[in-house]
């Protein structure tokens, strides 16, 4: 938890506590490890607990998959300060790369190839776009990425052999040898559905992404990202290669975007070009603003929350106000979802710009302060 940018809040507390009372610090460390262990067990057991209730497993799966993309966007927007509205385009690139290399009508390569390729191809395009947009800042960059996303959407729509045009197309399902992620299989006493299998596929990938991103932010490159965000000219003066740093952030974010898009489309098993539109990009921005800008755990929290909203709305559609019941007037559940996330986006921007993770950090700092005071 200590690699975040705002770690100032908790850093001084630990050395102080251990100097005063080593046993207290030990207890604190033990408690923390204990909590993590419980959390890890819960993560593994979760899909078996959630199996009988329809939305809970898809919520986890969509949440974990979009969390990969949200972390990618957070590296670009939160850590490096490059405000892009084109993130969904990179997800689309990942999805269509998967279809191109893995699809049965196309090359039909193995999952072990098409998933990394989705990241690589998106990364290469990110490299190009990063280099192209290098000279734009702030508002200009936002509009240029928006334009690139529109143009990309146009290409998706018109590359009919690949995308199927407006009708969309099937997306390959992960398969390794005889083991397919689309069919049911049994493991001892448990029956594994598609949802279970995806969960255990995505969870380790997300874990790797989290570890890698966390560590990256502690390296020279990660510090350079944040230096460029905080003051570009000062960073350049200190010897940071601003151009290379910005392009690296673009590449990193689009690689994660590509992997996320491939998994997302594959989980849905069907996609059409309209899916990767501006609204989807806005949703990703909403995830990181609600979760926490420049925070890896914040990205995950935001992604899971925004994944939960539509699923829960679908389940409780008949109990919620304003929603269209049958053919009457009112909102469709799709529109209701849009309102919910737009509303929360606004609320967080207005009242809690550091997101849920900001609330958590404040609470934690308050508790630590109180503990220290009671000891002194």
């Amino acid at each position, binding site marked *: 938890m200590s690699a975040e940018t705002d770690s100032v809040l908790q850093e001084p507390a630990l050395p102080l506590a251990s100097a005063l009372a080593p046993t207290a610090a030990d207890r604190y460390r033990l408690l923390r490890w204990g909590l993590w262990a419980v959390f890890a067990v819960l993560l593994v057991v979760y899909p078996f607990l959630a199996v009988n209730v329809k939305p809970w497993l898809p919520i986890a799966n969509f949440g974990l998959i979009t969390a990969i993309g949200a972390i990618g966007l957070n590296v670009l927007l939160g850590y490096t300060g490059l405000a892009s509205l084109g993130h969904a385009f990179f997800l689309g690139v990942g999805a269509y790369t998967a279809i191109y290399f893995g699809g049965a009508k196309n090359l039909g390569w193995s999952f072990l190839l098409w998933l990394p390729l989705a990241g690589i191809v998106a990364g290469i395009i990110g490299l190009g776009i990063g280099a192209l947009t290098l000279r734009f800042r702030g508002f200009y960059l936002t509009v240029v990425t928006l334009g690139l996303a529109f*143009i990309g959407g146009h290409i998706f729509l018109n590359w009919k052999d690949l995308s199927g045009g407006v009708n969309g197309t099937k997306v390959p399902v992960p398969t390794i040898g005889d083991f397919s992620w689309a069919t049911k299989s049994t493991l001892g006493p448990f029956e594994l559905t598609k949802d279970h299998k995806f969960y255990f596929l995505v969870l380790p990938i997300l874990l790797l992404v989290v570890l890698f991103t966390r560590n990256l932010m502690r390296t020279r490159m990660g510090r350079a990202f944040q230096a460029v965000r905080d003051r570009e000219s000062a960073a350049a003066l200190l010897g940071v290669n601003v151009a290379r740093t910005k392009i690296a952030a673009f590449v990193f974010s689009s690689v994660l975007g590509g992997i996320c898009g491939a998994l997302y489309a594959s989980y849905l098993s069907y996609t059409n070009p309209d899916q990767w539109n501006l*609204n989807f990009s806005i949703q990703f921005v909403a995830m990181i603003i609600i979760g926490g800008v420049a925070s890896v755990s914040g990205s995950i929290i935001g992604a899971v929350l925004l994944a939960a909203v539509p699923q829960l709305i679908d389940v409780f559609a008949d109990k919620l106000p304003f929603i269209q019941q049958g053919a009457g007037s009112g909102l469709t559940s799709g529109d209701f979802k849009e309102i919910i996330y737009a509303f929360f986006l*606004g609320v967080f921007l207005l009242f809690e710009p550091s997101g849920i993770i900001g609330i958590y950090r404040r609470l934690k700092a308050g508790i630590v302060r109180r503990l220290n005071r009671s000891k002194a």
Partner: protein
Amino acid sequence: MTTFLQLGVQGLALGCIYALIALGFTVVLLAGVINFAQGSFMLVGAYIVSWLTIERGVPFLISIAVGVAGVALLGILFEYSVLRRMSARPVFTIIMITLGLDIILRVFTVALWGYDVRANGDPFKLSTFQVGEITIKWADVWTMIATLTLLATFFFFFKYTKYGIGMRATATDHEAAAAVGISLPQIYTITWAITGLVATVGGVFLAASPRVLDSTLGFSALRAFPAIILGGLGSTVGAVLGGLILGLVEVLVSGYVGNGPNQVFGFLGVGFHEVATYVVLLIVLLVRPYGLFGKKEVERI
């Protein structure tokens, strides 16, 4: 040549609408806000006008006045309740909050008036007249007349009246403007009222026949968005010129690009005109990073 002139007239008419939209963007930009909700303002304005004229039988001009007042009120409310708390926040924060407003307004508009495509209630319908071989729509002519009137009024207001000068002073430096006694709340209120005016008029003409009114109208505002950068960010004249250019480009592209007879570049795909404005923007920005008429920003350390 006939085709070219025909497309040229249509392009100018669309360009006029884009000029209005771009002017709306720019005026708000001068008050320090990037308003991505402009599209939904157009949508709300056009729906109010359509509902009043068709369902309520109110004369067209009066419905427009009501629509303008409604949208202006919406903008002023938004400025008063949300944007006033947002000063000195990063640009992107304001972009996102207006995008959020855009979504909310769009969804509520369709929820209120339904998802069906509807006519916008203008009196011109599909009526046309002939000039030589060119067929001109009355709707296009009135679009141009309305736009030119509005633009002339706006520029007079902006250049010579007390409030216009106040707006320009605020755009240059709002603290200095406040220091010499210009009332910023008043300026912001005027700004959002102007936005309501141009958004509603733009929306109504954008939904004029043969085009129709439905929830996608707001996305057209995003197509006009490059105009404000093309003309140089923050320049009202630039925005109007940029809008005219983009309208022409879009209509000419829709006429000449494709797989039909006398058309070229079919490989660019169906519906290329919808992204043509952004292609133009990218090409221009690659050559001139601050737009056609923009000035380079000075970087302060």
